C-alpha cells in the first residue's frame, strides 16, 4: 500500500481498473451461467444413460448367467473365440464455450446375428442374447464416455470460471476499491492539510500585518 502513489492520476487509473474488473466479472458470470446451463443439459443425459447402463448391465449379467448355466461356460468361451476382435474408435473434438469436448465417432457395436462370426446353428439364442446385451452395454458405455468427459470438462471450466469470478469479486475488486478509497482519503487529507496550512499561513501573515500596523 505504501508503494501506491496517492495521486489523483493514480486514482483515475484505479477507478478505470475497477471498472474493468467489474466488467470482466460480469462477463465471467454470464459465461458461467451459460456453462452451468450446458452442464445441466449434459448431466441430465448422463444420469439418464447411467440409469440405462445400470439396467442394461443387470440384464446383460443375467443373460450371461443364464447362458453360462444352461450352455456350459466352455461353450460360451468357444463362442467368444469366434467373436473376439479389437475395437477402434475415432475421437474428434468440439468447442463448447471455449471448452474442448470429445466427440466419439458413432459406431454401433450391436451386431446382427450374422455378423458375430459364428454359425447361428451351433450357438444358442441365450448366448446371442448375452452377446447382444453386452454389445448394447458397450454402446452405452462409449456414449457415456463421451458425455461424461464433456461433463467433467465443463465442470472443471465452471469451477475455474467461478474461481476467477470469486477472485475478481472477493479479492481484486475490493482491493482496488480499497486502494481507490485510500487514494481518495489520502488526497482529501492532503487537501485538508493544505487548507489548514494555508489558513495558518494566512493567519500568520495577517498577524504580521496587524503587528506592522500597530507598530
Amino acid at each position, binding site marked *: 500500500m505504501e508503494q501506491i502513489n496517492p495521486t489523483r492520476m493514480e486514482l483515475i487509473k484505479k477507478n478505470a481498473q475497477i471498472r474493468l474488473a467489474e466488467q470482466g466479472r460480469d462477463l465471467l458470470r454470464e459465461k458461467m451461467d451459460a456453462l452451468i446451463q450446458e452442464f445441466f443439459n449434459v448431466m441430465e443425459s448422463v444420469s439418464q444413460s447411467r440409469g440405462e447402463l445400470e439396467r442394461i448391465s443387470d440384464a446383460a449379467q443375467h*443373460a450371461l*448367467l*443364464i447362458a*453360462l*448355466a*444352461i450352455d*456350459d*461356460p*466352455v*461353450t460360451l*468361451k*468357444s*463362442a467368444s*473365440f*469366434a467373436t*473376439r*476382435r479389437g475395437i477402434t474408435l475415432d475421437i474428434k473434438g468440439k468447442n463448447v464455450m471455449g471448452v474442448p469436448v470429445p466427440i466419439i465417432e458413432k459406431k454401433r457395436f450391436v451386431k*446382427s*446375428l*450374422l455378423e458375430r*462370426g*459364428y*454359425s*447361428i*446353428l*451351433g450357438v*444358442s*439364442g*441365450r448366448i*446371442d*442374447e448375452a452377446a447382444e446385451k453386452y454389445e448394447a452395454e458397450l454402446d452405452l458405455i462409449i456414449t457415456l464416455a463421451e458425455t461424461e468427459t464433456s461433463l467433467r470438462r465443463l465442470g472443471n471450466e465452471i469451477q475455474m470460471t467461478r474461481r476467477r469470478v470469486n477472485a475478481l469479486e472477493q479479492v481484486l475488486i475490493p482491493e482496488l476499491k480499497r486502494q481507490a478509497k485510500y487514494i481518495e482519503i489520502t488526497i482529501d487529507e492532503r487537501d485538508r492539510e493544505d487548507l489548514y496550512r494555508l489558513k495558518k499561513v494566512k493567519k500568520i501573515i495577517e498577524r504580521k500585518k496587524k503587528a506592522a500596523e500597530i507598530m
Partner: protein
Amino acid sequence: MEYAYVNARIKAMKSRLLDRTLLEQLINKPDIDSIITELEKTTYREELDRAGVLFSGINRIEVAIRNDLVKKFRTILNLIKGGESEQLISIILQRWDIQNIKTILRGKNIQENPSEILECLIPAGELDEAALTELVKQPDIKAVIDLLATWGIVYARPLALNFKEFTDTGDMVVLEYALDTFYYEDAISGVKAAESEDARILMKMIITEIDINNIKTVLRAIRDRIDVEEAKRYFINGSPDFHAGKLISMMKTGTIEGALKQLEKSPYEFITKIPKEYIAAEKISAFEKELEQYLIKKAISQFMGDPLSIAIPIAYIWAKYSEVTNIRVIARSIFMEVPEKELREALISV
C-alpha cells in the same frame, strides 16, 4: 447286437441319475461347498475327487459333471461297439465333435493359446481326447483340416470344400455353417441307409431336432430383420413337414406372431402359447427353452419305448445331458446368488 444286456446296463445307469428329490435338495443348499458334499454322495463322487485335485468351488463341479458326461457317453459307445447301433449312436454323439472342431477352428483363427482351446473341448463324441490334443497342436486352420483328412475323419470333407471361400472372405461362418449342414445331412443319409426299426426311431429324433433348429433360425432371423434370401442359407434340409417352402412362408410374415401362427396344428403348437410379453419382447431364449424342453422330453420319453431297441440309449444320452445341465444351472445360480424362482425357471424339467 445284444440289446438285452446293453439296455439293462443303461437302464441301471439311468436309475442312478439324480432324481427330483435330490435336485430339490441341491436347490436348497446354501453354498457351493454343500452342493459338493451332497454330490459326493452320488455317482459324481469319482469325478469330483478327480477334479478336486486341480479345481475348487464351482469349477470343480463343472469340470466334474462335464467329465462324468463324457465318461458315460464313452461307456455307452463302448457298450454298443460294433454294428449298426454303434453308427447310429455315434450320429447323436457327433454333435460334440462338431462343436469341438468349431472351437478348435475358432481358436486357431484368433491364434489362441492351445491349452486355452483344449480347456473348451468336450470329448464326448468320436474324436477322443488324444485326437483333440493333436488337433489343437496344429499351427493353423489349414493344418487342422489337413490332419482331419490325414486321419480320414469325415469332417475334413465339408471343411476342405469350403476352405477356399473362407480364405477369400476371411469369414469363419462359412466353415462353421459347412460343418453344421454336413452334420445333419450326413446324419440323415446315415440313418436312411440303415433302414431298420432303430434307424426309424433315431430318424424321428433327428427330424425333430432339425425342425426345432429351423424354427429357431426363422424366429431369430425375423427378430434380427434378416432378409429371407440370406436366412434361407441357414435352413437345414431333411424335414418333411418343415421344408424350406414352409420356413420361407413363415419368414415372409415378417413378425414373430405371424410365424408362430403358422405353427398351429403342428407338433410345435405349444410355443404359440408362450406368454405374450415374451412374444412382444421377441425374447428368443424363451422360445428356445420351450423347444429344447420339448426335444429333451421327447427323447427321454423314449425310455418308455421298445426296451430292446436304440430308444433306451437315446433316452439315456438326453437324460444324462439334462441332468448335467440341471446340476450346472443349480450350481451356477447358487454361486451367483440368483433367487430361487429364477433358478427354477432355468431348470430343464423332466
